[in-house]
């Protein structure tokens, strides 16, 4: 436990010292939320807009830290031989991955807190759902997105390729899941296609709970099953394919 605590503390400090990703993941959800409210201010669609789409804004932070920061930090450590230094100490890959997930997960939680606070302060948003169920759903969605991030971290050959992979996964996930652009304004064919995205499944659960649906009803759903399955598969795959060093070097 002390190992995790000490490494978590150090990595958390380091994350704050490179503020680019932190600023991105903390500010972007608020900006997107503000713009959406502004655009749809006089639109009939605006009634109950925030209540029904809060989950989407919170998931922007999850994606920024889970699909960008997490794989980029790990593949940077691999490219610069930081992981190789860890390889010749008694640390396990599982511990290193856990620490990074905890660090980036904390960032996503802080980002969600800031977004929710901004919604309450500036757009008089009130949370109607069950907080415990919402937190559970949030962690479930974060777990799913982070496990996908871990697979990128483990399989990307080097830092540059990790960057490319991150963009390939990150932008469609964010743009098409209803996190950036409200899902309901998509044409039907696009909605059908986008409904396959893991983040879409997560946003459905989050939105339902935030809009006041019974926690149990929202959590015990096929969407939860999909998320759990992705977490299991991706975590296993990332541990199995974990590399300390660049291939072929």
């Amino acid at each position, binding site marked *: 436990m002390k*190992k995790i605590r000490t*490494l978590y503390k150090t990595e958390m400090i380091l994350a704050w*010292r*490179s503020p680019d990703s932190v600023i991105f993941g903390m500010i972007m959800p608020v900006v997107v939320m503000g713009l959406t409210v502004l655009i749809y201010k006089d639109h009939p669609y605006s009634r109950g807009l925030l209540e029904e789409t809060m989950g989407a804004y919170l998931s922007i932070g999850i994606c920024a830290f889970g699909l960008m920061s997490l794989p980029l930090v790990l593949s940077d*450590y691999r490219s610069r*031989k930081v992981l190789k*230094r860890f390889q*010749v*100490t008694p640390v396990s890959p599982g511990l290193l991955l856990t620490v990074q997930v905890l660090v980036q997960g904390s960032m996503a939680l802080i980002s969600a807190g800031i977004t929710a606070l901004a919604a309450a302060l500036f757009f008089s948003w009130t949370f109607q759902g069950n907080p415990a169920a919402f937190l559970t759903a949030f962690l479930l969605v974060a777990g799913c997105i982070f496990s996908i991030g871990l697979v990128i971290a483990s399989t990307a050959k080097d830092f540059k390729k990790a960057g490319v992979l991150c963009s390939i996964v990150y932008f469609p996930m964010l743009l098409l899941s209803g996190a950036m652009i409200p899902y309901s304004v998509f044409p039907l064919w696009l909605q059908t296609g986008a409904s396959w995205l893991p983040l879409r499944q997560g946003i459905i659960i989050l939105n339902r709970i935030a809009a006041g649906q019974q926690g149990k009803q929202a959590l015990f759903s096929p969407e939860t099953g999909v998320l759990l399955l992705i977490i299991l598969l991706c975590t296993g795959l990332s541990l199995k394919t974990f590399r300390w060093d660049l291939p072929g070097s």
Partner: protein
Amino acid sequence: MNILTVEHLRKSYVRCQAVKGVSFAVPQGSIFGILGPNGSGKTTTLECILGTKEMDEGTVRLLDRDPRRDRKMLFERVGVQFQDSSWQNSIRIGELCESTVVLYTPEPEWRGRLKALGFDPKQMADTLSGGEKQKLSILLASLHNPEVLFLDELTTGLDPLSRRLVWDKIRELRDRGTTVILTSHFMDEVEALCDSCLLLYKGKVLTRGTPEELKKEGGSASLEDAYINLIGGAA
């Protein structure tokens, strides 16, 4: 007793065969040098021993264990300083030490040793000079008082005074019972430190022995000239 035995080690990369059947053993409590020109297979040999590279053929027993299978257990007792390893961006020296010692059981003391070497724990590790970085990475590799310490090109980039300090440190470790296995390009260093050496050339063992024996074999009173003669004779 031998702390390390390597038998018929072979390792190829896509374009070349880097190590072609190297065998040797290192007795406990000695300083052992692996020498050879650039590209002779020193670092590859070292990495196959440590398990950071997968060998194609051969056997390696380090502290009577298989380095790849018993990695976690082994690196409680083994310290490594790599030529090309580095640490996280914008990390302070103290944070680096703290997050290194916590990986070992029992957790070794670091503050006093950092101070003894004149490091400030609050300083950013990135801002250290090349030589200071080298000194810090040797310290990080030896904080847990390993039974075996691997040092890859240990004093490259160090000024003469720092080199002497590092040499003293290594002798002190040996006298306390640590086995040191190092690679070096400096023959004065090899002569001053090594109890025995292995000379690699093009992935094979060219010769082995004490620095005195190498000088005799190379037909010169200076180890550097003997080394050049031996390599020249094989080329």
